[in-house]
Protein backbone atom coordinates (compact mmCIF):
# COMPACT_ATOMS: atom_id res chain seq x y z
CA UNK A 1 0.00 0.00 0.00
CA UNK A 2 1.23 3.51 -0.83
CA UNK A 3 0.95 5.58 2.36
CA UNK A 4 1.24 9.00 0.76
CA UNK A 5 0.70 8.90 -3.03
CA UNK A 6 0.88 12.73 -3.23
CA UNK A 7 4.61 12.46 -2.68
CA UNK A 8 5.49 8.82 -3.31
CA UNK A 9 3.92 8.85 -6.77
CA UNK A 10 4.70 12.44 -7.74
CA UNK A 11 5.66 13.01 -11.38
CA UNK A 12 9.38 13.46 -12.03
CA UNK A 13 9.14 17.14 -13.08
CA UNK A 14 7.03 17.99 -10.02
CA UNK A 15 9.46 16.12 -7.74
CA UNK A 16 12.46 17.94 -9.24
CA UNK A 17 10.70 21.28 -8.76
CA UNK A 18 9.79 20.46 -5.16
CA UNK A 19 13.35 19.33 -4.40
CA UNK A 20 14.74 22.53 -5.93
CA UNK A 21 12.49 24.74 -3.80
CA UNK A 22 13.32 22.83 -0.64
CA UNK A 23 17.05 22.83 -1.37
CA UNK A 24 16.96 26.59 -1.90
CA UNK A 25 15.30 27.16 1.47
CA UNK A 26 17.71 24.75 3.18
CA UNK A 27 20.82 26.44 1.79
CA UNK A 28 19.52 29.81 2.85
CA UNK A 29 18.93 28.62 6.43
CA UNK A 30 22.30 26.86 6.68
CA UNK A 31 24.15 29.91 5.35
CA UNK A 32 22.55 32.20 7.87
CA UNK A 33 22.32 30.01 10.94
CA UNK A 34 25.06 27.36 10.90
CA UNK A 35 28.59 28.82 10.98
CA UNK A 36 30.02 25.44 10.01
CA UNK A 37 28.13 25.47 6.68
CA UNK A 38 28.56 29.20 6.12
CA UNK A 39 32.34 28.74 6.31
CA UNK A 40 32.29 25.71 4.03
CA UNK A 41 30.22 27.50 1.42
CA UNK A 42 32.43 30.56 1.56
CA UNK A 43 35.49 28.33 1.10
CA UNK A 44 33.96 27.07 -2.13
CA UNK A 45 32.79 30.52 -3.15
CA UNK A 46 29.12 29.52 -3.22
CA UNK A 47 26.36 31.87 -2.07
CA UNK A 48 22.74 30.87 -1.43
CA UNK A 49 21.57 32.67 -4.58
CA UNK A 50 23.83 30.39 -6.66
CA UNK A 51 21.46 27.52 -5.90
CA UNK A 52 18.48 27.95 -8.23
CA UNK A 53 17.46 24.34 -8.65
CA UNK A 54 18.36 20.87 -7.52
CA UNK A 55 20.89 20.58 -10.37
CA UNK A 56 22.97 23.22 -8.59
CA UNK A 57 23.55 20.81 -5.70
CA UNK A 58 26.93 19.90 -7.23
CA UNK A 59 28.21 23.34 -6.29
CA UNK A 60 27.65 22.62 -2.62
CA UNK A 61 30.19 21.09 -0.23
CA UNK A 62 30.05 17.54 1.12
CA UNK A 63 29.69 16.73 4.81
CA UNK A 64 31.62 13.84 6.35
CA UNK A 65 31.18 11.91 9.55
CA UNK A 66 34.52 13.23 10.84
CA UNK A 67 33.36 16.80 10.34
CA UNK A 68 30.21 16.03 12.31
CA UNK A 69 32.38 14.73 15.13
CA UNK A 70 34.54 17.83 15.06
CA UNK A 71 31.55 20.01 15.89
CA UNK A 72 30.09 17.60 18.47
CA UNK A 73 27.68 18.03 20.21
CA UNK A 74 25.72 21.09 19.07
CA UNK A 75 27.74 22.50 16.16
CA UNK A 76 25.22 21.55 13.46
CA UNK A 77 22.09 22.91 15.12
CA UNK A 78 20.13 25.16 12.78
CA UNK A 79 17.53 26.13 15.41
CA UNK A 80 17.73 27.14 19.06
CA UNK A 81 17.79 24.35 21.64
CA UNK A 82 14.29 25.21 22.93
CA UNK A 83 12.94 24.07 19.55
CA UNK A 84 14.63 20.67 19.84
CA UNK A 85 12.30 18.03 21.29
CA UNK A 86 14.44 14.90 21.02
CA UNK A 87 18.08 13.96 20.51
CA UNK A 88 19.55 10.69 19.23
CA UNK A 89 23.17 9.78 18.68
CA UNK A 90 25.06 7.00 16.95
CA UNK A 91 26.74 4.40 19.16
CA UNK A 92 30.10 6.14 18.97
CA UNK A 93 31.99 2.84 18.84
CA UNK A 94 34.44 4.24 16.30
CA UNK A 95 34.87 7.67 17.86
CA UNK A 96 32.73 10.49 19.14
CA UNK A 97 29.06 9.85 18.42
CA UNK A 98 27.23 11.85 15.77
CA UNK A 99 24.21 13.79 16.91
CA UNK A 100 20.74 13.99 15.39
CA UNK A 101 18.56 16.66 17.02
CA UNK A 102 14.88 16.74 16.04
CA UNK A 103 12.35 19.55 16.18
CA UNK A 104 8.66 18.72 16.53
CA UNK A 105 8.33 18.94 12.73
CA UNK A 106 11.34 16.61 12.30
CA UNK A 107 9.67 14.00 14.49
CA UNK A 108 6.52 14.37 12.38
CA UNK A 109 8.56 13.78 9.20
CA UNK A 110 10.19 10.77 10.84
CA UNK A 111 6.79 9.27 11.67
CA UNK A 112 5.65 9.99 8.11
CA UNK A 113 8.61 8.33 6.37
CA UNK A 114 8.46 5.35 8.74
CA UNK A 115 4.72 5.03 8.07
CA UNK A 116 5.60 4.92 4.35
CA UNK A 117 8.24 2.27 5.09
CA UNK A 118 5.97 0.02 7.12
CA UNK A 119 3.02 0.48 4.74
CA UNK A 120 5.21 -0.40 1.74
CA UNK A 121 5.67 -3.88 3.23
CA UNK A 122 1.96 -4.23 3.91
CA UNK A 123 1.56 -2.99 7.49
CA UNK A 124 -1.92 -1.65 8.35
CA UNK A 125 -3.73 -0.64 11.52
CA UNK A 126 -4.73 -4.28 11.95
CA UNK A 127 -1.14 -5.40 12.49
CA UNK A 128 0.75 -6.18 15.66
CA UNK A 129 4.28 -4.85 15.31
CA UNK A 130 6.88 -6.55 17.48
CA UNK A 131 9.58 -3.91 17.51
CA UNK A 132 12.84 -5.61 18.41
CA UNK A 133 15.05 -2.69 17.43
CA UNK A 134 16.72 -1.16 20.47
CA UNK A 135 14.86 1.70 22.13
CA UNK A 136 17.00 4.53 23.41
CA UNK A 137 19.64 6.66 21.77
CA UNK A 138 19.69 4.23 18.83
CA UNK A 139 17.21 5.48 16.22
CA UNK A 140 15.84 2.06 15.23
CA UNK A 141 13.47 1.54 18.14
CA UNK A 142 11.74 4.91 18.28
CA UNK A 143 11.75 5.35 14.49
CA UNK A 144 9.71 2.18 13.97
CA UNK A 145 7.60 3.10 16.99
CA UNK A 146 6.57 6.50 15.60
CA UNK A 147 5.82 5.07 12.15
CA UNK A 148 3.75 2.17 13.46
CA UNK A 149 1.82 4.55 15.73
CA UNK A 150 1.11 6.84 12.80
CA UNK A 151 -0.33 3.93 10.83
CA UNK A 152 -2.36 2.97 13.87
CA UNK A 153 -0.88 -0.50 14.21
CA UNK A 154 -0.43 -2.07 17.64
CA UNK A 155 3.18 -1.63 18.72
CA UNK A 156 4.88 -3.99 21.14
CA UNK A 157 7.94 -1.99 22.23
CA UNK A 158 9.94 -5.01 23.36
CA UNK A 159 13.25 -3.46 22.21
CA UNK A 160 16.32 -5.55 21.35
CA UNK A 161 17.67 -8.68 23.01
CA UNK A 162 16.03 -10.96 25.57
CA UNK A 163 15.45 -13.71 23.05
CA UNK A 164 13.31 -15.91 25.32
CA UNK A 165 10.88 -13.10 25.91
CA UNK A 166 10.82 -12.24 22.18
CA UNK A 167 9.72 -15.79 21.44
CA UNK A 168 7.10 -15.80 24.19
CA UNK A 169 5.64 -12.52 22.88
CA UNK A 170 5.65 -13.77 19.29
CA UNK A 171 3.81 -16.91 20.31
CA UNK A 172 1.38 -15.38 22.81
CA UNK A 173 0.51 -12.06 21.16
CA UNK A 174 0.67 -13.46 17.61
CA UNK A 175 2.76 -10.58 16.27
CA UNK A 176 2.25 -10.15 12.53
CA UNK A 177 5.19 -7.82 11.87
CA UNK A 178 8.73 -8.17 13.19
CA UNK A 179 11.29 -5.38 13.10
CA UNK A 180 14.94 -6.09 13.93
CA UNK A 181 18.31 -6.59 12.25
CA UNK A 182 18.33 -9.40 9.65
CA UNK A 183 20.92 -11.43 11.55
CA UNK A 184 18.83 -11.20 14.71
CA UNK A 185 15.79 -12.59 12.89
CA UNK A 186 17.76 -15.73 12.07
CA UNK A 187 19.13 -15.86 15.59
CA UNK A 188 15.52 -15.74 16.85
CA UNK A 189 14.50 -18.52 14.46
CA UNK A 190 17.39 -20.66 15.62
CA UNK A 191 16.51 -20.09 19.28
CA UNK A 192 12.87 -20.89 18.46
CA UNK A 193 13.87 -24.20 16.86
CA UNK A 194 15.78 -25.13 20.00
CA UNK A 195 12.64 -24.47 22.02
CA UNK A 196 10.57 -26.54 19.63
CA UNK A 197 8.76 -23.49 18.20
CA UNK A 198 8.46 -23.18 14.42
CA UNK A 199 8.54 -19.48 13.58
CA UNK A 200 6.92 -20.33 10.25
CA UNK A 201 3.68 -21.13 12.06
CA UNK A 202 3.26 -18.13 14.38
CA UNK A 203 1.58 -15.98 11.71
CA UNK A 204 4.21 -13.37 10.89
CA UNK A 205 3.43 -11.71 7.57
CA UNK A 206 6.35 -9.34 7.19
CA UNK A 207 9.65 -8.37 8.72
CA UNK A 208 11.42 -5.03 8.29
CA UNK A 209 15.11 -5.59 8.47
CA UNK A 210 17.87 -3.04 8.38
CA UNK A 211 20.84 -1.50 10.20
CA UNK A 212 23.31 -3.96 8.67
CA UNK A 213 24.11 -5.13 5.15
CA UNK A 214 22.56 -8.41 4.01
CA UNK A 215 22.21 -10.33 0.79
CA UNK A 216 19.53 -11.77 -1.46
CA UNK A 217 20.40 -15.30 -0.30
CA UNK A 218 20.03 -14.25 3.31
CA UNK A 219 16.65 -12.75 2.44
CA UNK A 220 15.55 -16.06 0.92
CA UNK A 221 16.77 -17.89 3.99
CA UNK A 222 14.81 -15.54 6.28
CA UNK A 223 11.67 -15.76 4.14
CA UNK A 224 11.85 -19.55 4.11
CA UNK A 225 12.37 -19.69 7.85
CA UNK A 226 9.79 -17.11 8.91
CA UNK A 227 7.27 -17.69 6.08
CA UNK A 228 7.04 -13.91 5.89
CA UNK A 229 8.03 -11.16 3.48
CA UNK A 230 11.51 -9.87 4.39
CA UNK A 231 11.64 -6.16 3.57
CA UNK A 232 14.94 -4.32 3.40
CA UNK A 233 14.86 -0.89 5.03
CA UNK A 234 17.54 1.76 5.04
CA UNK A 235 18.40 4.69 7.20
CA UNK A 236 21.13 6.22 9.29
CA UNK A 237 21.28 8.31 12.44
CA UNK A 238 22.96 11.24 10.68
CA UNK A 239 20.03 11.65 8.29
CA UNK A 240 17.00 10.76 10.45
CA UNK A 241 17.34 7.10 11.48
CA UNK A 242 15.32 4.43 9.66
CA UNK A 243 12.89 5.82 7.09
CA UNK A 244 15.29 7.09 4.45
CA UNK A 245 14.39 4.29 2.03
CA UNK A 246 12.53 0.97 2.01
CA UNK A 247 11.49 -1.75 -0.37
CA UNK A 248 7.90 -2.21 -1.47
CA UNK A 249 6.31 -5.65 -1.70
CA UNK A 250 8.01 -6.16 -5.10
CA UNK A 251 11.42 -6.13 -3.40
CA UNK A 252 13.11 -4.53 -6.38
CA UNK A 253 15.20 -1.75 -4.87
CA UNK A 254 14.55 0.56 -1.93
CA UNK A 255 12.29 3.56 -2.59
CA UNK A 256 13.96 6.68 -1.27
CA UNK A 257 11.73 9.30 0.38
CA UNK A 258 13.10 11.76 -2.14
CA UNK A 259 10.89 14.66 -1.12
CA UNK A 260 12.82 14.69 2.18
CA UNK A 261 16.18 13.10 1.34
CA UNK A 262 17.88 14.00 -1.91
CA UNK A 263 20.12 11.15 -3.13
CA UNK A 264 23.28 11.30 -5.24
CA UNK A 265 25.86 8.67 -6.10
CA UNK A 266 29.48 9.79 -6.23
CA UNK A 267 32.83 8.28 -6.99
CA UNK A 268 34.26 7.99 -3.45
CA UNK A 269 37.76 8.80 -4.68
CA UNK A 270 37.04 11.92 -6.76
CA UNK A 271 33.69 13.16 -5.43
CA UNK A 272 32.29 13.28 -8.99
CA UNK A 273 28.57 12.61 -9.33
CA UNK A 274 27.93 9.36 -11.20
CA UNK A 275 25.02 8.63 -13.55
CA UNK A 276 22.12 6.39 -12.51
CA UNK A 277 23.00 2.71 -12.57
CA UNK A 278 26.64 3.26 -11.69
CA UNK A 279 27.94 1.97 -8.39
CA UNK A 280 29.36 4.46 -5.94
CA UNK A 281 28.95 6.11 -2.56
CA UNK A 282 25.48 7.29 -1.59
CA UNK A 283 25.29 10.97 -0.65
CA UNK A 284 22.17 12.42 0.98
CA UNK A 285 20.94 15.97 1.54
CA UNK A 286 18.19 16.43 4.12
CA UNK A 287 15.79 18.70 2.23
CA UNK A 288 13.28 19.35 5.01
CA UNK A 289 15.15 18.83 8.25
CA UNK A 290 15.05 21.65 10.78
CA UNK A 291 17.15 20.51 13.77
CA UNK A 292 20.40 19.25 12.28
CA UNK A 293 20.13 19.49 8.49
CA UNK A 294 22.98 18.10 6.41
CA UNK A 295 24.25 19.06 2.98
CA UNK A 296 25.51 16.21 0.81
CA UNK A 297 26.30 13.82 3.64
CA UNK A 298 28.66 11.04 2.59
CA UNK A 299 27.04 7.86 3.91
CA UNK A 300 30.00 5.57 3.02
CA UNK A 301 27.37 3.10 1.77
CA UNK A 302 27.94 1.70 -1.71
CA UNK A 303 24.90 1.35 -3.97
CA UNK A 304 23.43 2.63 -7.24
CA UNK A 305 20.23 4.45 -8.21
CA UNK A 306 17.35 3.64 -10.53
CA UNK A 307 14.90 6.46 -11.28
CA UNK A 308 12.56 4.42 -13.47
CA UNK A 309 9.05 4.05 -12.02
CA UNK A 310 8.32 0.85 -10.09
CA UNK A 311 5.43 -1.50 -10.88
CA UNK A 312 4.04 -0.65 -7.43
CA UNK A 313 3.14 2.83 -8.72
CA UNK A 314 5.74 4.75 -6.76
CA UNK A 315 7.88 7.09 -8.83
CA UNK A 316 10.58 7.76 -6.24
CA UNK A 317 14.19 6.85 -7.01
CA UNK A 318 15.19 3.40 -5.89
CA UNK A 319 18.56 2.48 -4.43
CA UNK A 320 19.87 -1.05 -4.80
CA UNK A 321 20.32 -2.95 -1.54
CA UNK A 322 23.53 -1.63 0.06
CA UNK A 323 26.41 -3.50 -1.57
CA UNK A 324 28.99 -2.63 1.04
CA UNK A 325 30.67 0.19 2.89
CA UNK A 326 33.53 2.28 1.70
CA UNK A 327 35.04 1.69 5.16
CA UNK A 328 33.91 -1.96 5.47
CA UNK A 329 35.56 -2.77 2.24
CA UNK A 330 38.37 -5.24 2.58
CA UNK A 331 41.27 -4.89 0.24
CA UNK A 332 42.76 -8.33 -0.29
CA UNK A 333 45.88 -8.30 -2.44
CA UNK A 334 44.58 -5.17 -4.10
CA UNK A 335 41.10 -6.54 -4.80
CA UNK A 336 38.11 -4.77 -3.21
CA UNK A 337 35.93 -7.25 -1.38
CA UNK A 338 32.72 -6.69 0.56
CA UNK A 339 31.49 -9.22 3.11
CA UNK A 340 28.09 -9.14 1.39
CA UNK A 341 29.64 -10.47 -1.84
CA UNK A 342 31.24 -13.37 0.01
CA UNK A 343 27.98 -14.12 1.78
CA UNK A 344 26.08 -14.24 -1.49
CA UNK A 345 28.53 -16.79 -2.88
CA UNK A 346 28.88 -19.14 0.08
CA UNK A 347 25.12 -19.28 0.61
CA UNK A 348 24.75 -20.85 -2.82
CA UNK A 349 26.06 -24.13 -1.42
CA UNK A 350 23.12 -26.17 -0.21
CA UNK A 351 22.59 -26.12 3.54
CA UNK A 352 24.94 -23.23 4.29
CA UNK A 353 23.50 -20.65 6.66
CA UNK A 354 24.64 -17.04 6.95
CA UNK A 355 26.83 -17.70 9.97
CA UNK A 356 30.28 -16.90 8.75
CA UNK A 357 33.30 -14.81 9.59
CA UNK A 358 36.18 -13.44 7.57
CA UNK A 359 39.65 -13.54 9.03
CA UNK A 360 42.38 -11.62 7.23
CA UNK A 361 46.02 -12.16 8.00
CA UNK A 362 49.23 -11.16 6.33
CA UNK A 363 51.83 -13.87 5.89
CA UNK A 364 55.10 -13.24 4.11
CA UNK A 365 53.78 -9.88 2.89
CA UNK A 366 50.73 -11.53 1.34
CA UNK A 367 47.14 -11.13 2.47
CA UNK A 368 45.31 -14.31 3.29
CA UNK A 369 41.58 -14.45 3.66
CA UNK A 370 40.07 -17.27 5.65
CA UNK A 371 36.32 -17.70 5.37
CA UNK A 372 34.97 -19.56 8.38
CA UNK A 373 31.61 -21.16 7.71
CA UNK A 374 29.56 -22.89 10.36
CA UNK A 375 28.59 -26.50 9.72
CA UNK A 376 24.88 -27.28 9.68
CA UNK A 377 22.93 -30.54 9.94
CA UNK A 378 22.02 -30.19 6.28
CA UNK A 379 25.61 -29.76 5.11
CA UNK A 380 27.11 -32.53 7.20
CA UNK A 381 28.11 -35.78 5.63
CA UNK A 382 29.98 -38.68 7.15
CA UNK A 383 32.72 -38.52 4.57
CA UNK A 384 35.72 -36.27 4.86
CA UNK A 385 36.01 -36.19 1.09
CA UNK A 386 32.53 -34.71 0.73
CA UNK A 387 33.23 -32.05 3.32
CA UNK A 388 36.55 -31.13 1.75
CA UNK A 389 34.81 -30.93 -1.60
CA UNK A 390 32.32 -28.50 -0.10
CA UNK A 391 35.19 -26.29 1.10
CA UNK A 392 36.83 -26.47 -2.31
CA UNK A 393 33.58 -25.66 -4.12
CA UNK A 394 33.17 -22.52 -2.05
CA UNK A 395 36.81 -21.57 -2.63
CA UNK A 396 36.41 -22.11 -6.38
CA UNK A 397 33.17 -20.09 -6.49
CA UNK A 398 34.80 -17.26 -4.55
CA UNK A 399 37.74 -17.28 -6.93
CA UNK A 400 35.48 -17.33 -9.97
CA UNK A 401 33.46 -14.31 -8.78
CA UNK A 402 35.97 -12.22 -6.87
CA UNK A 403 39.24 -13.32 -8.37
CA UNK A 404 40.85 -13.86 -4.98
CA UNK A 405 42.17 -17.02 -3.40
CA UNK A 406 40.55 -17.77 -0.08
CA UNK A 407 40.69 -20.59 2.39
CA UNK A 408 37.28 -21.82 3.40
CA UNK A 409 37.21 -23.51 6.77
CA UNK A 410 34.22 -25.40 8.13
CA UNK A 411 33.74 -24.78 11.83
CA UNK A 412 31.37 -26.11 14.46
CA UNK A 413 27.94 -24.55 14.93
CA UNK A 414 27.79 -21.60 17.33
CA UNK A 415 31.58 -21.26 17.26
CA UNK A 416 31.20 -17.83 15.63
CA UNK A 417 29.98 -15.26 18.14
CA UNK A 418 26.31 -14.35 17.70
CA UNK A 419 25.29 -10.77 18.02
CA UNK A 420 21.94 -9.33 18.95
CA UNK A 421 22.73 -6.20 16.99
CA UNK A 422 25.05 -5.82 14.03
CA UNK A 423 26.91 -9.00 13.11
CA UNK A 424 30.69 -8.80 13.33
CA UNK A 425 31.88 -10.28 10.08
CA UNK A 426 35.51 -9.26 9.80
CA UNK A 427 38.53 -9.97 11.94
CA UNK A 428 41.44 -8.15 10.40
CA UNK A 429 44.68 -9.31 11.96
CA UNK A 430 46.88 -7.39 9.54
CA UNK A 431 48.99 -4.68 11.11
CA UNK A 432 48.48 -2.06 8.44
Amino acid at each position, binding site marked *: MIWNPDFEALSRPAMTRLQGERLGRLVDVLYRRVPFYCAKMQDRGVRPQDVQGVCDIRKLPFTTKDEMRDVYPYGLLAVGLPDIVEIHTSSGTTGKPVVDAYTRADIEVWAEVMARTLAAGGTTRHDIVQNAYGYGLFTGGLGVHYGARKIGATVIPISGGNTKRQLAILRDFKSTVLTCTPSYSLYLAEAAREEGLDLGTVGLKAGFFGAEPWSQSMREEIQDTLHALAIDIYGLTEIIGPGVAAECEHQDGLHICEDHFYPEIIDPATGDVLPDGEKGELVITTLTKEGTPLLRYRTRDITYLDRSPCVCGRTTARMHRVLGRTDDMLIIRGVNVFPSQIEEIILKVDGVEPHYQLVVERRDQLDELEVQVE*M*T*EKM*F*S*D*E*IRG*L*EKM*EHTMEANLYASLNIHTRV*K*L*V*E*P*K*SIARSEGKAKRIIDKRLL
Partner: protein
Amino acid sequence: MHMSVRQISIFLQNTKGRLAEVTGLLAARGINIRALSLADTADFGVLRIIVGDPDACLAALKTSGIIAQVTEVLAVEIEDKPGGLSRVLAALDAAGLNVEYMYAYVEKTRDNAIVICKVDDRQHAMRVLEENGIGTLSADALKAL
Protein backbone atom coordinates in the same frame (compact mmCIF):
# COMPACT_ATOMS: atom_id res chain seq x y z
CA MET B 1 21.30 -62.94 9.38
CA HIS B 2 22.81 -60.02 7.46
CA MET B 3 21.98 -56.62 8.79
CA SER B 4 23.62 -53.28 8.97
CA VAL B 5 24.72 -51.44 12.06
CA ARG B 6 24.01 -47.79 12.90
CA GLN B 7 27.13 -45.74 13.41
CA ILE B 8 27.11 -42.22 14.81
CA SER B 9 29.21 -39.73 12.81
CA ILE B 10 30.17 -36.51 14.55
CA PHE B 11 31.58 -33.27 13.15
CA LEU B 12 34.45 -31.92 15.22
CA GLN B 13 36.51 -28.82 14.76
CA ASN B 14 40.21 -29.51 14.94
CA THR B 15 40.88 -27.63 18.16
CA LYS B 16 42.77 -28.63 21.25
CA GLY B 17 40.73 -30.63 23.72
CA ARG B 18 37.60 -30.89 21.54
CA LEU B 19 37.71 -34.70 21.29
CA ALA B 20 38.10 -34.96 25.06
CA GLU B 21 35.10 -32.68 25.55
CA VAL B 22 32.85 -34.75 23.32
CA THR B 23 33.92 -38.11 24.73
CA GLY B 24 33.53 -36.61 28.21
CA LEU B 25 29.99 -35.61 27.35
CA LEU B 26 29.18 -39.16 26.27
CA ALA B 27 30.85 -40.58 29.40
CA ALA B 28 28.70 -38.33 31.59
CA ARG B 29 25.58 -39.81 29.95
CA GLY B 30 26.79 -43.37 30.52
CA ILE B 31 27.30 -43.99 26.79
CA ASN B 32 29.94 -46.62 26.14
CA ILE B 33 31.96 -46.35 22.94
CA ARG B 34 32.45 -49.86 21.52
CA ALA B 35 34.45 -48.88 18.47
CA LEU B 36 35.71 -45.64 16.99
CA SER B 37 37.63 -44.11 14.18
CA LEU B 38 38.69 -40.52 13.67
CA ALA B 39 39.30 -39.11 10.23
CA ASP B 40 40.64 -35.61 10.05
CA THR B 41 41.98 -32.78 7.96
CA ALA B 42 43.89 -29.72 9.20
CA ASP B 43 40.57 -27.96 9.93
CA PHE B 44 38.12 -30.55 11.12
CA GLY B 45 37.53 -34.20 11.80
CA VAL B 46 34.74 -36.72 11.64
CA LEU B 47 34.51 -38.99 14.65
CA ARG B 48 32.72 -42.25 13.90
CA ILE B 49 31.56 -44.36 16.81
CA ILE B 50 29.58 -47.51 17.49
CA VAL B 51 27.60 -47.38 20.72
CA GLY B 52 24.99 -49.59 22.39
CA ASP B 53 22.14 -47.10 22.02
CA PRO B 54 22.63 -44.90 18.94
CA ASP B 55 19.37 -42.98 19.47
CA ALA B 56 20.26 -41.91 23.01
CA CYS B 57 23.75 -40.99 21.83
CA LEU B 58 22.42 -38.88 18.95
CA ALA B 59 19.95 -37.11 21.22
CA ALA B 60 22.70 -36.32 23.77
CA LEU B 61 24.92 -34.84 21.06
CA LYS B 62 22.17 -32.75 19.48
CA THR B 63 21.13 -31.32 22.82
CA SER B 64 24.69 -30.10 23.18
CA GLY B 65 24.53 -28.44 19.78
CA ILE B 66 26.93 -30.89 18.16
CA ILE B 67 26.41 -31.85 14.52
CA ALA B 68 25.97 -35.62 14.28
CA GLN B 69 24.15 -38.11 12.11
CA VAL B 70 23.46 -41.82 11.79
CA THR B 71 25.34 -43.70 9.08
CA GLU B 72 24.50 -47.29 8.19
CA VAL B 73 27.64 -49.44 8.13
CA LEU B 74 28.45 -53.15 8.06
CA ALA B 75 30.01 -55.14 10.91
CA VAL B 76 31.94 -57.79 9.03
CA GLU B 77 33.31 -60.92 10.63
CA ILE B 78 36.89 -61.63 9.71
CA GLU B 79 38.83 -64.77 10.38
CA ASP B 80 41.44 -63.93 13.00
CA LYS B 81 44.41 -65.18 10.96
CA PRO B 82 46.71 -63.93 8.18
CA GLY B 83 44.71 -63.27 4.99
CA GLY B 84 41.39 -62.89 6.79
CA LEU B 85 40.88 -59.21 5.92
CA SER B 86 42.38 -59.65 2.48
CA ARG B 87 39.75 -62.28 1.58
CA VAL B 88 36.92 -59.89 2.48
CA LEU B 89 38.38 -57.00 0.54
CA ALA B 90 39.12 -59.18 -2.47
CA ALA B 91 35.48 -60.32 -2.57
CA LEU B 92 34.19 -56.75 -2.42
CA ASP B 93 36.70 -55.57 -4.98
CA ALA B 94 35.82 -58.38 -7.38
CA ALA B 95 32.20 -57.22 -7.18
CA GLY B 96 33.25 -53.66 -8.09
CA LEU B 97 32.41 -52.34 -4.62
CA ASN B 98 34.26 -49.44 -3.10
CA VAL B 99 35.18 -49.41 0.61
CA GLU B 100 34.93 -45.82 1.80
CA TYR B 101 36.52 -46.50 5.17
CA MET B 102 36.92 -49.25 7.74
CA TYR B 103 38.10 -49.66 11.29
CA ALA B 104 38.46 -52.45 13.85
CA TYR B 105 35.85 -53.24 16.42
CA VAL B 106 37.14 -53.88 19.92
CA GLU B 107 35.80 -57.08 21.41
CA LYS B 108 37.00 -59.51 24.01
CA THR B 109 37.46 -63.22 23.47
CA ARG B 110 36.15 -64.51 20.16
CA ASP B 111 37.41 -66.57 17.30
CA ASN B 112 36.69 -63.99 14.65
CA ALA B 113 37.70 -60.35 14.49
CA ILE B 114 35.19 -57.71 13.46
CA VAL B 115 35.72 -54.70 11.23
CA ILE B 116 33.28 -51.87 10.73
CA CYS B 117 33.06 -51.14 7.06
CA LYS B 118 31.40 -48.37 5.01
CA VAL B 119 30.80 -49.31 1.39
CA ASP B 120 29.20 -47.33 -1.40
CA ASP B 121 26.44 -49.88 -2.04
CA ARG B 122 25.51 -51.55 1.21
CA GLN B 123 22.79 -53.93 -0.11
CA HIS B 124 25.05 -55.17 -2.86
CA ALA B 125 27.95 -55.62 -0.44
CA MET B 126 25.82 -57.70 1.93
CA ARG B 127 24.85 -60.00 -0.93
CA VAL B 128 28.47 -60.38 -2.04
CA LEU B 129 29.66 -61.16 1.48
CA GLU B 130 26.91 -63.73 1.95
CA GLU B 131 27.76 -65.42 -1.34
CA ASN B 132 31.37 -65.66 -0.18
CA GLY B 133 30.39 -67.13 3.17
CA ILE B 134 31.55 -64.04 5.07
CA GLY B 135 29.40 -63.20 8.05
CA THR B 136 28.13 -59.80 9.14
CA LEU B 137 26.66 -59.00 12.52
CA SER B 138 23.36 -57.33 13.27
CA ALA B 139 23.19 -54.46 15.70
CA ASP B 140 21.69 -56.74 18.36
CA ALA B 141 24.36 -59.39 17.85
CA LEU B 142 27.03 -56.72 18.17
CA LYS B 143 25.44 -55.36 21.31
CA ALA B 144 25.31 -58.82 22.85
CA LEU B 145 29.06 -59.37 22.50
